[in-house]
């Protein structure tokens, strides 16, 4: 059974003239699996991540669908019912880690309160765990009694990651954990995450606009466009061949080894307005393979050789070719 199962999740902002930020998203995450979520900025990744952890804030509202985490339907539970499961079942690392720490509490106090809330650990055990997670992210134990403003941006983000591990969560949602950091620190944090994978048992939802980073860390990748999953595929398959035209455009924008240039060729236009979605496929206006059907009928997310893709053209193509025995 999957650890996390998201079923037809819809999230909107506002009641009158709403923004349809997440439009019927379904996927699963299995135990100890690392899943990546990629898409252009504004396509609804953070909104989806927050909604999964039931952290949506007004005007955001879950307008439909379910989130089942470890057998419990989080969308059917009240805040009071959710509280005992928070941080134990799922912890989050926010996009702007800089601001995720309370400026008036020491790191120690911010580690402690969540352990006191959820466990009956003794005082030494609490301290021991705090030091353990700091060791895990390779930060000096000295910073335990410091305040956030005394730490650099990279250190703060590591502290936030360390905090996410405090209660041995089943799932960690990382929302652009390295976006605000320079390349060196980003590299260190990515290496650190891979290293942790070998030591701790947890599943990961890694959200980023950077397909390269996501491919590096994920077993399976979800490609998001305009509030929908347009492709779900194993990372190793994607490295060879993306199915959806949007995925292919993203792949083309990856840096080519040996060249510094990182051009975004192949994608014209801009994403659709999430208040008024056009009829048909959301990607049609920017697509090279577009057909008449694409402008009329919205494609479904269809299974193809163990992957899923939301495209009329590619779907048919691969199905036809897929009937031949030798497709890789």
């Amino acid at each position, binding site marked *: 059974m999957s650890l996390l199962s998201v079923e037809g999740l819809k999230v909107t902002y506002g009641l009158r003239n709403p923004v349809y930020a997440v439009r019927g998203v379904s996927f699963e995450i299995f135990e100890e699996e690392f899943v990546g979520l990629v898409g252009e900025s504004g396509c609804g990744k953070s909104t989806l991540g927050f909604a999964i952890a039931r952290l949506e804030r007004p005007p955001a509202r879950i307008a439909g669908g379910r989130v089942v985490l470890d057998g419990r339907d989080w969308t059917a539970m009240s805040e009071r019912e959710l*509280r005992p499961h928070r941080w134990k079942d799922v912890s989050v690392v926010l996009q702007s880690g800089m601001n995720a720490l309370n400026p008036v509490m020491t790191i120690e106090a911010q580690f402690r309160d969540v352990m006191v809330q959820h466990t009956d650990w003794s005082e030494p055990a609490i301290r021991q765990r705090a030091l353990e997670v700091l060791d895990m992210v390779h930060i000096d134990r000295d910073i335990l009694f410091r305040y956030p403003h005394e730490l650099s941006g990279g250190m703060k983000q590591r502290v936030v990651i360390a905090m996410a591990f405090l209660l041995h969560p089943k799932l960690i949602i990382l929302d652009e954990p390295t976006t605000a950091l320079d390349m060196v620190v980003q590299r260190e944090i990515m290496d650190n995450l891979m290293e942790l994978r070998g030591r701790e048992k947890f599943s990961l939802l890694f959200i980023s606009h950077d397909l390269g980073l996501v491919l590096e860390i994920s077993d399976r990748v979800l490609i998001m466009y305009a509030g929908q999953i347009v492709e779900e595929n194993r990372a190793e398959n994607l490295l060879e061949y993306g199915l959806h035209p949007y995925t292919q455009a993203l792949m083309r924008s990856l840096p080519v080894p040996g060249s510094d240039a990182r051009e975004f060729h192949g994608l014209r236009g801009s994403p659709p307005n999430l208040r008024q979605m056009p009829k048909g496929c959301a990607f049609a206006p920017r697509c090279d393979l577009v057909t008449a059907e694409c402008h009329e009928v919205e494609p479904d997310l269809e299974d193809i050789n163990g992957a899923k893709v939301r495209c009329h053209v590619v779907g048919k193509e691969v199905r036809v070719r897929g009937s031949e025995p030798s497709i890789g």
Partner: protein
Amino acid sequence: MNHGRRALFGVTSGESERDGSCMKYFLKRVLLLIATLWVAITLNFLIPRMMPGNPGQAVIAKFAGEGHPLTPSALKAIDAMLGLSHASLPVQYWQYLGEVVHLNFGVSYSYFPYTVTELIAKALPWTLGLVGVSTVISFFVGTGLGVLVAWRRNQATDGILTSIAAFTGAFPYFWFALAAVYVLGFLLNWFPLSGGYEVGAIPHLSWGFILDVIHHAILPAVTVVVSSIGGWLIGMRNNMINTLGEDYVLLARAKGLSNRWIATMYAARNAILPNITGFGMALGFVVAGSLLTEVVFGYPGMGNLLYNAVINEDYPLMQGIFLVIVFCVIMANFLVDLLYVFIDPRVRERRGSGA
């Protein structure tokens, strides 16, 4: 190397260096305090001497006109405060500082033969008791309600309390106080019309007298609280709502902490910082701000004293009160600066090393 509690866990901390910057911060504040006080006291010396005419001479003339003989020591104090003598300015300044240090501000003209110091000593406790206590109550209740309505923003509690706060805050104090006296004192006779205690009573420590004082204080205190509480409520509500939008509050929710803990330690603890500065200002202006209240309610405090001093052109008394007001403002700011060290860890460095 590592000692005590932390050694047990193999942790050293930056606390000692933090203590250092804390000390530096404190010293800076104290130096600034002394400098500001000195400037205020010096201004108090210079202003009467720069005024057209000679206030000192006028005071002496008034005393003489009323047939009050001035004792030599009283003359000397007025001399020092207002600049009657023909000694050189530095000599006068030196004498003046001596008088100030000994809290000797001369004799009041309008309350002869009381000294200014005696008058202030008698009036100050009333003002601190009435306006000071009201200000403190107003701050704490208003701020607390602000936290509450921000937590329940856009619900009924918020709508009702915030509207009331906006209304009372916008009401002109003077008319409000007069209306309170007229309706609750004069028409309904629930409260005395004026004074700090029953006419003819002699202030002393007994339950009867204390109850009498409280009975006299309720109406003016309520007017002060009602007129100022809305500002605290709305200020705190706005700060809180901003803070509630911060990432660290969202993360606190993700951590599954209790609402009470999030509202206090994560939201209110950060939101209250700007309000503390306002509170310091309000405390500093308790003496100066007591004027309207005390005049309307005939309260025997500093505001009334100042009012009478101005009416009677009682320069020695005005100067003495001026010094008290300035002293209160400066001290309140000093105390708030110190308080900040405890409530905002970022202040130490920012204000301690920089600036």
